[in-house]
């Protein structure tokens, strides 16, 4: 019996020994877009590459919003097996570039005119030391309100324009017996909402100074304290069970009409779409009150690794296809985000997508396009996560006052810098 098993095993591993040579006509792609809509969106790219004769070797590792994939990437790089490209976020691209493992796409970028079409704020992360090292795929924006229109009509509300409007609207919902604010009490959701609160409370200049430049005076300021007070105000409108809730369950509360509004990035639109809801008639997308004209963004990038020369042609094809107008449009229609270049026509997008594209363009031109600190585009991961700790501890009561919150925030960011 045992002998039989052993022989079977030997045969099995024998099959595994059949090694395969690296195919130069293939792109090896590490990413964490593995489920339904995301995979469908990425399949468009696979199809585009197939047309040019390049095979797609999928290396999908989901989990923890890219954490598992980044861990796998670190192991792959340590082993010396660079993928052709990997989905990456913000500062991670720069870290790998500084470590000298990224490729150089400057030639392609020049030819394709990426310098002009990709917003400068994004180029901060896709260009390192004057060299293009990554191709941005999309731009997500986080300062959005997602509102159930039926509930809004029932309570007789209108679009809130200021933070005070917003509070008044939430009060109306409360009086009508609806959960005013759907929130998932996980640190990244709370911090994502706080990004918007800070922008709304302090304005664009203040947001940039505090959350992009990490300016000590701004972090310590009364405006920051006021922002925490406003956050505390918002938290009084959530239901008692909010803590630990996944973001999509919070979105479901709005879809079902149990709650009036969720503050969330534009990926929430995918949930509405999946529930067959239409923007404008079933749900509404407004900018977070007091942040109109500014966009807090995060972006998915495909980092390009320094692969051997014979694999470079495939890499260039991948980068070119990624930033082609047709793919940018097709992909982002499905994903809920907007194109990473500002010259893509918005014809295929829904109302919220059209607004997103227009807002991005305006913010890019007006210099009000800011990286989200919560999403890792405001500061390196050590700082961003220290920030999330403080916001979450404030929301859940470990940090008791806004004074204490400011002190803790300054301390945490200093410590992590």
């Amino acid at each position, binding site marked *: 019996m045992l002998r039989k*098993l*052993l022989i*079977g*095993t030997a045969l*099995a*591993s024998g*099959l*595994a*020994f059949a*090694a*395969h040579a690296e195919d130069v006509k293939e792109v090896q792609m*590490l*990413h*964490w*877009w*593995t*489920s*339904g*809509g*995301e*995979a*469908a969106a*990425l*399949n468009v790219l*696979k199809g585009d590459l197939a047309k040019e004769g390049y095979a*797609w*070797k*999928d*290396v*999908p*590792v*989901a*989990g*923890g*919003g*890219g954490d*598992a994939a980044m*861990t*796998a990437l*670190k*192991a*792959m790089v*340590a*082993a*010396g*097996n660079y993928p052709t490209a990997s989905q990456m976020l913000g500062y991670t691209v720069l870290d790998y570039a500084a470590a000298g493992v990224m490729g150089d796409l400057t030639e392609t970028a020049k030819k394709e005119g990426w310098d002009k079409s990709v917003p400068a704020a994004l180029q901060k992360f896709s260009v390192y030391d004057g060299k293009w090292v990554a191709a941005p795929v999309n731009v*997500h924006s986080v300062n959005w309100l997602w509102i159930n229109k039926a509930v809004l009509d029932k309570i007789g509300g209108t679009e809130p324009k200021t933070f005070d409007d917003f509070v008044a609207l939430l009060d109306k919902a409360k009086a009508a017996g609806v959960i005013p604010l759907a929130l998932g009490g996980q640190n990244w959701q709370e911090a994502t909402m706080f990004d918007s609160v800070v922008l709304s409370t302090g304005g664009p200049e203040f947001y940039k100074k505090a959350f992009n430049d990490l300016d000590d005076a701004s972090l310590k300021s009364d405006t920051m304290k006021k922002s925490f007070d406003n956050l505390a105000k918002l938290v009084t409108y959530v239901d008692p069970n909010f803590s630990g809730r*996944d973001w*999509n369950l919070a979105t*479901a509360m709005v*879809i*079902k009409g149990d709650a009036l509004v969720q503050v969330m*990035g534009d*990926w929430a639109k*995918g*949930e509405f779409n*999946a*529930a067959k809801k239409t923007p404008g008639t079933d749900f509404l997308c407004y900018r977070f009150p007091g942040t109109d004209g500014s966009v807090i963004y995060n972006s998915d990038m495909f980092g390009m690794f320094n692969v051997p020369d014979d694999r470079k042609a495939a890499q260039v094809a991948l980068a070119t296809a990624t930033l082609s107008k047709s793919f940018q449009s097709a992909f982002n229609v499905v*994903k*809920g985000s907007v194109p990473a270049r500002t010259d893509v026509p918005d014809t295929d997008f829904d109302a919220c997508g059209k607004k997103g594209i227009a807002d991005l363009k305006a913010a890019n031109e007006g210099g009000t396009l800011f990286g989200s600190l919560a999403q890792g585009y405001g500061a390196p991961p050590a700082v961003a996560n220290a920030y999330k700790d403080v916001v979450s501890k404030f929301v859940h009561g470990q940090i008791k006052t806004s004074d204490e919150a400011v002190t803790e925030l300054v301390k945490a960011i200093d410590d992590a810098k």
Partner: protein
Amino acid sequence: MSAVTIPARQASGGVNVKVINRIVIYGLLALFALFYLMPLFVMLVTSFKTMDEIQNGNMLALPRAPTFDPWLKAWGETCVGLTCAGIKGYFWNSIKMVVPAVLISTMLGALNGYVLTKWRFRGATLVFGLMLFACFIPFQSVLLPMATILGSLGRFGVTLQNATGTSFGLGNPTVNLVFVHVVYGIGFTTLFFRNYYEAFPTELVKAAQVDGASFFQIFRRIMLPNSMPIFVVTVIYQFTNIWNDFLFASAYAGTGDAMPMTVALNNVVNTSTGVVEYNVNMAAAMIAALPTLLVYVLAGRYFVRGLMAGAVKG
């Protein structure tokens, strides 16, 4: 099954006490079975519901209109990355990695346990203590240095391939995973066997030695036949851990052709900014666990008293 007679039966005189004893025992066992089954119940009912019902209904309620679609989708349609052919194709990847890893680590553990208890040498306890402490190393901190070593072995494999025509498995992701799981499994397997053999009569081994039996003969003829229960425990433990390992599997074998089941399952279940299909996830998790459950049931059949006890009785 030649079991030890039940103490309760012997000690108590009357039939009534006996009956009550049995009722209490079965009652307790059933109660705990309920506790263990509760989450399974949640998963099962969810896997037969439509997404609509999951979002709108009670999590513990029975499905109003049971549907098999989630199971079919998990089996053959759901997306694991860009390949949307379900999780059915990943069983083989896992099996060809898990079976050798379990067998090798278990056999090594049995041999080690045998040496450490029946062939004690100066320092044997220290050696055991050191191997035991190895169980505690956090896998996160071995991930990168191990990757570096596997990477070098892989490059050496390519050199070998060019020189001799075969890489001897060096650089193959499946072989790498087998190696890693054997390395970090022998601590446990040695622990299990050593502590089981500790209670095994040394006189028997001595007697066999006097009779001229060799090291391996004693192991094969005396130790192994009496090790069934601990074999079962070790195989259950190793199979479960290796089958469910995600960290090493995703870091060393994330590519499509060698991707083990756990990585595939993770890819089905985890989504950062996409719609979560709970019913499909639950079904996929149960499908992915089937081989492990099968091992529990099959191996459990050997959970009888070892031949040792039988021999004593006879």
